């Protein structure tokens, strides 16, 4: 680095990166649930179609 990154800006990254990681975790969790629901819906549809 050829300039002072600023201790305050470095320290706050602990919080910013922490928040981002929590967000990423929940996004992953949400995506998993959404894809599970989708899968279930698709398999239900398939069953319905098979019955027909």
């Amino acid at each position, binding site marked *: 680095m*050829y300039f002072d990154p*600023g201790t*305050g800006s470095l320290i706050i990254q602990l919080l910013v990166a922490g928040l981002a990681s929590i*967000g990423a975790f929940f996004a992953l969790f949400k995506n998993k649930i959404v894809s599970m629901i989708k899968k279930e819906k698709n398999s239900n549809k398939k069953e319905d179609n098979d019955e027909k």
Partner: protein
Amino acid sequence: MMKNKELSSFRDPSGFIYYENNKVIRKINPIYFKEYNHLMDSGLYKELVDNNLLIKHKEIKKSNDEILLEVEKIPYISYPYEWTFEELKEAALLTLKINKIALKYGMILKDATSYNIEFIGCKPIFIDTLSFMFYEENSPWGAYGQFTRHFIAPLVLMKYVDIRMNTLLKNYIDGIPLDLCSNLLKNRGGMISKIHIKLQNISIKKHNNDGKKDVVKINISKKSIINMFDMITNQINNLKLKKYTTEWMDYYDLSNYNEKAFNSKENIIKEFCKMIKSKDNDISFDLGSNDGRFSKLIEKELNNYVVSFDIDNNAVEYNFINNKDNDRILPLIMDFTNPSSGIGFSNNERKSIMDRGNANLTLVLAFIHHLVISNNLSFEMVADFLSKITKYLIIEFVPKEDSQVELLLKTRNDIFDFYNIETFKEEFSKYFKIIKEEKIDNSKRTLFLMEVKNERTSNK
């Protein structure tokens, strides 16, 4: 002797830029050889250049003392205080994208100033080849504070306070200070401001004097840094202005043009273009370009690179959004009654409009009445200025009988006895040779093609 050293290229000891025989040369000092070699050998340079994210270069010398690169030239230099909200947003997103790619190759950006980005037409490109440093496992991003000042601060101020807040960047060459940004935002600004501006501002104040203490080691995993880049990318992507799609759609309907007059104007300009000596890729200016439709015409007719200036943020934004894939039209915000001056140390780091190179052709359409009547400039002052920036000039004279001029004079004293076509021609003839003049059908306006008498500044 290196006479033409780029005067903004002094901060980073890794190297500097200079100009030689109209070429842009980047000299790399031995202190940066390791990083440069990694950039080139790891595949990072290739991935960035293949995706048009980083400026291309050619190695022209490699010795133990220096590496010299010939860097691809940017057709026209612009600065963040001349960009629209969307342009600044694109520049911010490009910085984050490059950072994320660099991490894959074990590197990270050591700085994040908005001056590391330039536009080729409407496409942003990263121009600082020496910005990459080795990523140290578990360390935070050193340029996060700078990124906030240069990108997040002006973007949130433009969105939540006033669109003209980008002009603050003229005063603060290393980005808008976060305490100032925080004061201006007050309680506005959404989550993005709470996190990056307000909390960071508190943290900066709290740790202001930490230089006196022992340095604390801060550990952040690589995964968390990537998550942080993703979060900021999403937050910036979600910053959207409400207006610009509607206001400018009927711009030309409001002015004095019916379809016949408009077609006549286009045809005359096309005819004038045939009389101009121009090479492919010459620079043209369009002053008061509005939504940029005549910039497009010039770009096509002459195969020129057109810098499309307007004072109005929304018009320039409209121009940018509608030409996003165009790499030949550069829309910029500029007030020609007070164009960008030189800023930075010795007023030399960022160039004034007069120092950034001239145009072969300049369009001044439906603009002269704003300069003369709204701003009290004389015809001679306008002609004098234009003769310093262009060789050819296509200028539209808008007479007093025109409804747009009538509108301007409605609310003020008419102190403009001289405002007539004869005086206009007389004053402009001091600086330009009038090659042709033609009246626009179904309108009271006249178009002129002129050529400067003595070129007064050389193309830089």
